[in-house]
């Protein structure tokens, strides 16, 4: 009797182990493929010229494969969108978790999460057709398809992620911590800023990094809205071409296993490394600031 139970248990273990490793294996294989298809470009250009070269003319003769403007485009768009989405997301999370009445919270939170389900092409279209002409007319700038517009659209996309995950983190701060703070005479605001936020910083940073990862990897929105000029932008109202936009626009027509194809995959590697670093930072912060004891999340 005990024997069949053991076999059953072992069988279960193996089954779940396989399920759990499946996603890791797939991810690993995709990365191997990415590197296999991307690395051959470095026979044509050096790593330094590829990353710091400022001209991207993959189809000219002779071609130039410099993705520096693309990297800068991605970084600028991500930072600008983060500077909009982080305050918005975290502050709405504080409101929902700490200040709003239960009824409001129950209505607003699902709506915010629904916002995350908006397809990016819809947001891109909104940015292209509504926001771009609006910016052109109001600010009198040459084009509304620029970094500012793209950042704004990306911020819309990351706010729900940031808000929802931060809210969970803030909400799960134990009540007795707050009660202790209030009992010591701190106001509600002081309690939020000095006790609740530090106690949930690990969850909030995870939320922020996840939101930013979504922004840097987002393709459709930047393809439609960022303008797509492959040059280092001089102001936030200049167009830019983030890396995913470049890959998406050119991959379909790039000759299979040609230099252009390899260069696009190598751009993918750079993007992969960026997001990888983001995730390591998130992991590090989450680990370092994890509250122990009563406030552990």
């Amino acid at each position, binding site marked *: 009797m005990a024997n069949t139970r053991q076999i059953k248990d072992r069988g279960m273990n193996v089954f779940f182990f396989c399920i759990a490793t499946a996603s890791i294996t797939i991810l690993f294989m995709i990365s191997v493929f990415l590197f296999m298809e991307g690395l051959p470009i470095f026979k044509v250009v050096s790593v330094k010229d590829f990353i710091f070269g400022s*001209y*991207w*003319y*993959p*189809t*000219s*003769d002779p071609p130039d494969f410099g993705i520096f*403007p693309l990297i800068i485009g991605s970084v600028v768009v991500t930072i600008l969108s983060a500077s909009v989405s982080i305050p918005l997301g975290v502050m709405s999370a504080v409101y929902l978790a700490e200040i709003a009445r239960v009824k409001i919270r129950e209505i607003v939170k699902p709506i915010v999460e629904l916002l995350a389900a908006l397809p990016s092409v819809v947001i891109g279209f909104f940015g*292209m*057709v509504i926001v*771009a*002409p609006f910016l*052109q007319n109001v600010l009198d700038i*040459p*084009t*509304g*398809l620029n970094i500012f517009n793209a950042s704004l659209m990306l911020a819309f996309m990351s706010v729900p992620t940031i808000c929802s995950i931060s809210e969970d983190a803030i909400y799960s701060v134990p009540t007795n911590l707050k009660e202790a703070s209030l009992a010591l005479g701190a106001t509600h605001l002081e309690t939020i800023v000095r006790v609740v936020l530090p106690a949930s910083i690990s969850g909030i940073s995870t939320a922020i990094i996840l939101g930013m990862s979504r922004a840097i990897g987002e393709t459709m929105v930047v*393809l*439609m809205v960022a*303008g*797509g*000029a*492959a*040059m280092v932008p001089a102001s936030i109202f*200049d*167009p830019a*071409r983030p890396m995913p*936009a470049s890959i*998406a*626009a*050119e991959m*379909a*027509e*790039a*000759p*299979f296993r040609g230099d*252009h194809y390899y260069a696009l995959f190598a751009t993918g590697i750079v993007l992969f490394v960026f997001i990888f670093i983001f995730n390591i930072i998130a992991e590090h912060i989450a680990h370092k600031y994890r509250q122990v004891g009563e406030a552990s999340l």
Partner: protein
Amino acid sequence: MKKLSFVVTIALSIFCMATVAVAGNIVIKGSTTVLPIAQKVAEAYMKENPEVSISLSGGGSGNGIKAIIDGTTDIADSSRFIKGKEVKLAVEKGVYPVPFRVAYDCIVPVVHPSNPIKDISMDQLKAIYKGEVKNWKDVGGPDKKVVVISRDTSSGTYEVWNKKVMKKDRVYPGALLQASNGAVAQAVAKNKYAIGYIGLGYLNKDVKALTVNGVTGSMETTIDGTFPISRPLFMFTQGWPKGETVKFLNYVLHPAKGQKLVGEAGYVPLY
């Protein structure tokens, strides 16, 4: 080693299958510019003749013509005429590629309808796209910055523009990039100071087509060759086509069938 021989066998068998094109099978390869035409016509043709199967692939004009010379395809799509070098190579192999003109590609510069400019010269276009002219007043327009909209460098439309307008000079990096004809039209329609270029089939009332060197871009001016930013598109066959291939080409060239679909694909039909 075993694996390698396996791959070689597979490759060889595919090669053979492609060479021995049985009646009822047509293989089409080549230019991605001609691909939308080939695709539309092939779909319609297969609908009318269900016993025929047509296999389509892109890969570029060069690859298409190479396949005709090697005999691995029945029809090669090409967005340019065959080069002298290729003809020589073909004749050495005893192959005589036969060109069929199937359509024209006509690219029209467009601006916002509120822009007072009506005509532009090829030199002005080149200067704008090289980033030398940055203000509309330099080409006779209002004192406003020019917003240059271009296509992704892999597209056939960009290829024509690059060859005919830029004379192979580079479009300056500050030009905005859009990934399709439709997106360029959309972007120009929404921006008063923009200039872009789109295929003739994509013109609509929200954008204003410019005349180039005084010539209006239209089907007539494209066919008689007076509009400067246009080119013929070809399908090549190996020797004079026979069997199913000649039927297919007749279908492509039929004014009410294939040529109508050419127009629907956004290109200029022959008649």
